[in-house]
């Protein structure tokens, strides 16, 4: 029975197989082009950019689940992404600092006491915010396992509490979106404070250096993270496809289209929303935990409300209510965005006036969002679907 069900899952969802095949080909191509494992055609920094893009695709899938399928326009999922980054960042930074401090103290006559070691680590990490005490939130920072658990637990718990309060009071639509923005803003402002215990606006840095792997060069580490991101995206896509393909998907789409009707069928709509909201927050957090070691730094600006709005824009442009639409949107827009804002796009001189893409890209993005909303509500993937059906 389960075997039939599993086989028919792929039969019923051929696009999942297509997606996995394309992702594998892409991963292989990058592997062969990278400096560490291939012919070196591709710079390490570009491998990192692509790895990060895969993480953005993963959070876009989460966004598509919560918004495109369940109709909850959350403008706060990037907060969970950032929190995931912070949770893994704490371990990365603490352990690496510990290694450095231990090394610099090893030539002392007397070996350092644990207290001295702790003080030295505290000064190293929190000197920038004028402190040397290790805050309480760093209690488990020396345990990779616990911090990995916290990656999903902390954002998951935040989403659970927030969602429970909001959904129980039947806050929906624009009001819910505003509430999620408020949550994001509050979190980001809190993290900006020096006494938040997470280094204020400095954030956590040096995350690209993996403790215990000092001998391994960045080109190798970048390809490992790229592989991990590809694997996470593949698993995330499978999970999302599993969720939306069966009866569960039917119910959440029903909630999106007419939640009162779903209630009268006997479904506890609030429970479903809570499961989706919390589950996608956890997926976002995992994406963030893979993203920030590749970015090297996580700071409160990453959690700014605008980031979550961009996420919604990607999914809208890619096409919501389709998993591959979310992936296309995130990949396309974020890569294009880094091309334009990275200064690679040639400026366009117009006589007295020059279009500088670093400034004008946002205008283009804004206009394309408006255009998509007006003329192609199904996004890029909708246009794509039409072409496939015609041929």
């Amino acid at each position, binding site marked *: 029975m389960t075997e039939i069900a599993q086989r028919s899952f792929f039969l019923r969802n051929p696009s999942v197989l297509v997606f996995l095949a394309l992702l594998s080909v892409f991963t292989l191509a990058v592997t062969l082009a990278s400096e560490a494992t291939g012919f070196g055609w591709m710079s390490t920094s570009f491998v990192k950019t692509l790895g990060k893009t895969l993480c953005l695709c993963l959070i876009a899938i989460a966004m598509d689940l919560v918004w495109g399928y369940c109709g909850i326009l959350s403008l706060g999922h990037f907060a969970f992404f950032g929190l995931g980054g912070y949770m893994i960042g704490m371990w990365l930074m603490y352990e690496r600092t510990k290694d450095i401090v231990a090394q610099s103290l090893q030539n002392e006559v007397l070996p350092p006491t644990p207290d001295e070691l702790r003080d030295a680590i505290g000064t190293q990490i929190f000197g920038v915010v004028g402190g040397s005490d290790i805050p309480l939130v760093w209690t488990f920072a020396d345990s990779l396992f616990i911090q990995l658990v916290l990656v999903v637990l902390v954002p998951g718990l935040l989403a659970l509490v927030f969602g429970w309060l909001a959904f129980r009071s039947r806050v929906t639509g624009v009001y819910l979106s505003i509430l999620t923005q408020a949550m994001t803003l509050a979190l980001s402002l809190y993290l900006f404070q020096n006494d938040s215990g997470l280094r204020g606006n400095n954030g956590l840095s040096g995350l690209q250096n993996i403790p215990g792997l000092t001998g391994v060069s960045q080109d190798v580490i970048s390809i490992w993270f790229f592989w991990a991101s590809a694997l996470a995206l593949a698993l995330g896509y499978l999970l999302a496809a599993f969720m939306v393909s069966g009866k569960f998907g039917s119910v959440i789409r029903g909630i999106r289209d007419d939640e009162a009707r779903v209630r009268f*069928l006997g479904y*506890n709509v609030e429970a479903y929303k809570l499961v989706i909201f919390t589950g996608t927050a956890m997926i976002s957090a995992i994406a963030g935990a893979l993203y920030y070691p590749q970015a090297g730094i996580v700071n409160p600006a990453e959690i700014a409300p605008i980031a979550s709005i961009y996420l919604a824009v990607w999914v809208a442009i890619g096409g919501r209510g389709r998993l591959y639409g979310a992936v296309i949107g995130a990949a396309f827009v974020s890569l294009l965005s880094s091309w334009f804002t990275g200064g690679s796009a040639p400026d366009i001189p117009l006589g007295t006036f020059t279009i500088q893409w670093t400034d004008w890209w946002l205008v283009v993005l804004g206009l394309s969002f408006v255009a998509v909303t007006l003329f192609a509500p199904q996004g890029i993937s909708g246009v794509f679907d039409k072409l496939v059906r015609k041929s």
Partner: protein
Amino acid sequence: MTTLLEVSGVSVSFDGFKAINNLSFQIGEAEMRAIIGPNGAGKTTFMDIVTGKTRPDEGHVIWGDRSVSLLKMSESQIARVGIGRKFQRPTVFEAQTVRENLAMALKNARGPFDVLFYRKSKSGADRIEALAEEIGLSNQLPRIAGTLSHGQKQWLEIGMLLAQEPRLLLIDEPAAGMTPEEREHTTQILVEAAKTRAVVVVEHDMEFVRRLNCKVTVLHEGAVLAEGSLDHVTQNQTVIDVYLGR
């Protein structure tokens, strides 16, 4: 016959306007009941109260053998104890197929994780086929519900109601927008359903009510005006006055 639903002394007002005024109503197991009354009499509001959509200002709504109060339950809990509802305007999930609509309504565990790990079963598929047969949509199962005709949507909604296997069906204007043949078929489905459960039908069309051949409750200004056989209530002078607007 034991009482399945007992509504007593219920009142509700919207901005000072009393839509339901000290209404009392009872229905037993396996009973068919028609509710008639002029526009704005409070028929839909009555259903809103029973299904938990509207909370009354006063009164009691008691359900089942163990006499539990429905007033403390959420809409979804009320649906799960066995009350199904068809809305005045057909409300099916237009973006989904007929089969998906029926599958969602099928009586099964309703929790998020039960549903997530729900596996399609032979018995479920058979049940959907049987229901589709009953509502005349057998060869429309893969069709997107939004593309059905108005009458077919009404039937699909009735089918979803039957799929829930409720003990009480509340049906608001099932025959609106149907052809005479479709009405005939709808009557059959309802009469059949009332053999094993309670069915409350709100309808304006007297011909339709006559064919249901059941006890009739007349609502007016949020209260019961008369109750009895259709002939009995239509001979009642106050009922005639209300309908003629005197």
